């Protein structure tokens, strides 16, 4: 195998150029996925080079995983083959930015922050403050399909990704969509790339609709004794004329993690969040964006809502701009914070109808207690739950408990007609649990699509199916 790898490296070096290819085990070790190391790392500088590498992989039937900054590469099942890591960070330019058209076209390997800066200068933004965004590439954000609190008002990437260029499994450069905000020309293939984990194609460039940044924002935190009370308050907000940018429910343990992170921050904020919220509570975090008149109106609406007899809250805190930015930063980075605090955490993403959220949260809490595992919850009012089960260490008996709990969570979600996945968990757990949960009826159709895009199953084989 070593000789074969060396041969592949030499041939790729000769085809692409030695500076873009490495077979050095220490370099390859940086690209490990679920304890499997590739034997080649290729870092192309342009789309044509990337396509050449794919064609080589197709010829030699090598398993290839495209990647960016590798912040979310652990999402998915362990790869069944992994020979080549295709590092796309060499493709990192903003190809077009038309502020007047509110559109931007960016290479997949560009960092989210590198894109955010020029948008910010034009008072625009892309509503994707997803977990790890500060060190993520745009391509990685789309391929991993992670969401953010702003989905409540802006939708998910499928609502503002307007086109893409990518390399299919035959090594050809293809495209879908375009650079205009309204376009129904041809199949919407670019939508399939969202959450595809690199299994369909190598994303080369992405086109987005951008959004004007609101001049003012204001945060409101309603603390309640129980999750039911907090969700009931959330319903009051939803039924009001307000159109919040985000509504998220944070469990007391998760808020404690935010406060701890704030305490450990190298630059403590002028107005810390510490001490502002009651302990042992659920916290409904609502952000409002708009003009100062809109934010003032929101303050009046919250004053009205807390006076309603059905509002069972213990406290309402209005946050200023800086405090709000802090809280929503931590809220957006819940997953990195959780993984930092508990590297063996199992973090589920569950989608459920909003009306079933209350029941689900109660049942999930019961399951975690039964497994004697500490838990945190982040629940979006639009029906997304991030449940983290936090074993104190990776010892086998605890892993077994996590495995049992995962089976119970998947079973519960099936009975609740919710879809569930386990995007973050230790590799050892993936040997016992399918992180995609119960097989879905439409997986067979997805396999057909995978075969259409990638006939030889080169791309991230085994990660999704």
């Amino acid at each position: 195998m070593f000789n074969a790898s060396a041969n592949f490296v030499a041939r790729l070096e000769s085809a692409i150029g030695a500076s873009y290819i490495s077979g050095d085990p220490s370099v390859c070790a940086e690209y490990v996925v679920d304890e499997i190391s590739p034997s080649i790392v290729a870092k192309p500088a342009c789309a044509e080079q990337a396509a050449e590498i794919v064609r080589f992989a197709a010829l030699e039937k090598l398993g290839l995983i495209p990647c960016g900054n590798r912040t979310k590469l652990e999402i998915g099942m362990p790869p069944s083959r992994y020979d080549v890591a295709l590092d796309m960070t060499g493709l990192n330019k903003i190809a077009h930015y038309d502020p007047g058209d509110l559109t931007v076209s960016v290479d997949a390997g560009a960092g989210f922050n590198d894109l955010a800066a020029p948008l910010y200068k034009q008072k625009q933004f892309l509503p994707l403050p997803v977990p790890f965004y500060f060190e993520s590439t745009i391509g990685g954000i789309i391929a991993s399909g992670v969401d953010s609190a702003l989905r409540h008002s802006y939708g998910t990437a499928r609502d503002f990704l307007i086109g893409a260029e990518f390399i299919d499994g035959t090594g050809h450069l293809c495209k879908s969509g375009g650079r205009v905000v309204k376009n129904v020309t041809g199949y919407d293939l670019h939508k399939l790339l969202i959450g595809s984990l690199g299994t369909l194609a190598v994303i080369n460039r992405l086109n987005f609709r951008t959004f004007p940044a609101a001049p003012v924002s204001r945060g409101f935190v309603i603390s309640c004794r129980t999750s039911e009370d907090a969700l009931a308050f959330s319903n009051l907000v939803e039924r009001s004329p307000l159109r919040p940018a985000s509504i998220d429910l944070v469990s007391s343990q998760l808020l404690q993690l935010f406060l701890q992170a704030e305490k450990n921050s190298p630059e403590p904020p002028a107005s810390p969040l510490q001490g502002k919220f009651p302990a042992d509570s659920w916290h409904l975090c609502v952000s409002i964006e708009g003009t100062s008149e809109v934010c003032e109106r929101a303050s009046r609406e919250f004053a009205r809502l807390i006076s309603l007899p059905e509002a069972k809250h213990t406290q309402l805190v209005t946050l200023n701009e800086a405090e709000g930015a802090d809280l929503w930063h931590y809220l957006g980075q819940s997953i990195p914070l959780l993984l930092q605090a508990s590297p063996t955490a199992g973090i589920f993403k569950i989608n459920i109808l909003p009306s079933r959220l209350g029941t689900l949260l109660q049942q999930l809490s019961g399951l975690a207690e039964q497994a004697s595992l500490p838990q945190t919850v982040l629940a979006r009012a639009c029906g997304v739950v991030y449940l983290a089960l936090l074993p104190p260490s990776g010892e086998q008996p605890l892993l077994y408990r996590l495995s049992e709990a995962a089976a119970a969570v998947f079973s519960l979600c099936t009975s609740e007609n919710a879809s569930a996945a386990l995007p973050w968990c230790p590799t050892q757990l993936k040997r016992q649990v399918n992180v995609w949960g119960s097989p879905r009826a439409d997986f067979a159709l997805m396999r057909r699509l995978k075969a259409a895009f990638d006939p030889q199953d080169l791309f991230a084989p085994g990660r999704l199916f």
Partner: protein
Amino acid sequence: MNTTARSKKAAPIWLFFPPPQKRSPKSSNLPPSGAGTGLSGGALARTGGLMIVFARMNRILSIDPENQRAVVQPGVVNFDLTLAAEPHGLYFAPDPSSQKSCTIGGNVAENAGGPHTLAYGVTTNHVTALELVLPDGEIVRVGSTQGDAPGYDLTGLFVGSEGTLALVTEITVRLSPKPEAVKTLLAIFDSVDDAAETVVDVTARAIIPAACEMLDGWTLRVVEDFVHAGFPRDSAAVLLLEVEGLAEAVAGQAAAITEACNAHRARKVRVARDNAERELLWKGRKNAFGALGRLAPSNYVLDGVIPRTKLPQALRRIREIGHRYGFDIANIFHAGDGNLHPIVLYDPRDKGQFERAMQASAEIIRYCVEAGGALTGEHGIGMEKAELMPLLFSDADFDLMRRVHDAFNPACLLNPGKIFPLSKGCGEIRLRAKSSAHVSVA
């Protein structure tokens, strides 16, 4: 008769109308159509065959106000869903001009838009799940009621696939809450250029209205004579703008839009005083295509898209093309998102005129593509624009689209001759059309 039907003619050999209780046809060579309002020929039986008409599968199966969802059969008329959701303070956001007659199945097939898609997106942004019948008769569900299920976004692929991949027999949609306040503004201009520059400026000022429609002088005079919507007959262009949301947000946006209009020499900016006036203005907009029928025996509606900053030069170019080919070209379109609807007025009885109308239209579409735009913003490719697809897509793009098509519809039973140019589509459809039945969807 719609424009496409006038310019392209094709008839099925058989029609089949599945009743509401027949949720899913089982045979591979059976049932699809809706209301036949499409403008790209997506619902025409290009190769003859068997057309399935979904008009009788028109039940709203459920409305779930708490979760803002509805489940409907494909034959439900778009506006009927909004009427049914209204008592709950909800509505179905996609609002094509034909919303009082077009079906949601047709909206899904073509990924239809409408004036308010500027703020709320096209059909795909409001569909979370579909029940499908594949050509082999298998019934499958894709997506989920809540949306965002793990795996590939199959719902996103099937919406807008123009009936070429599967038949849609049930649709789960997201309903939207009605806003607290709505303001409709009519900005009147003495120059088309000023109106176009205003649209660019509104976007540049970071205002995204719910709708931003433009009617040029030619169109608005015809519409005014027909609908009496209150458009001033002596103006060169009007913009119909709408802002929605919290009362405070609406007030601020309306003021900023008025400022932008005035900065570009608007003669007047009028705010609709009440719902009746608002509805009248929209009646003028939505009945414009019908009104244009009074002017010429036939017309050809285009659907090209351009980057919105290029609106002023695009309108000048369309005028120039019209003059060169000797046609009056009316413009009534979704200015806010750059979705043009130039309408070429011609007499189909004059063969030479018909040919010239098609040439002028192709030139306009080519200009849209050269300007960085697209062939279609909301009408779909159908059979009308299939031969123009190579303007945007390479052989590799077609190869991949072909493989995706064949993954679901390998024998080309469903809606052959659509989306793909004939040379790149189902290779032998012209031969097969004479010997076997095919299925077309509307």
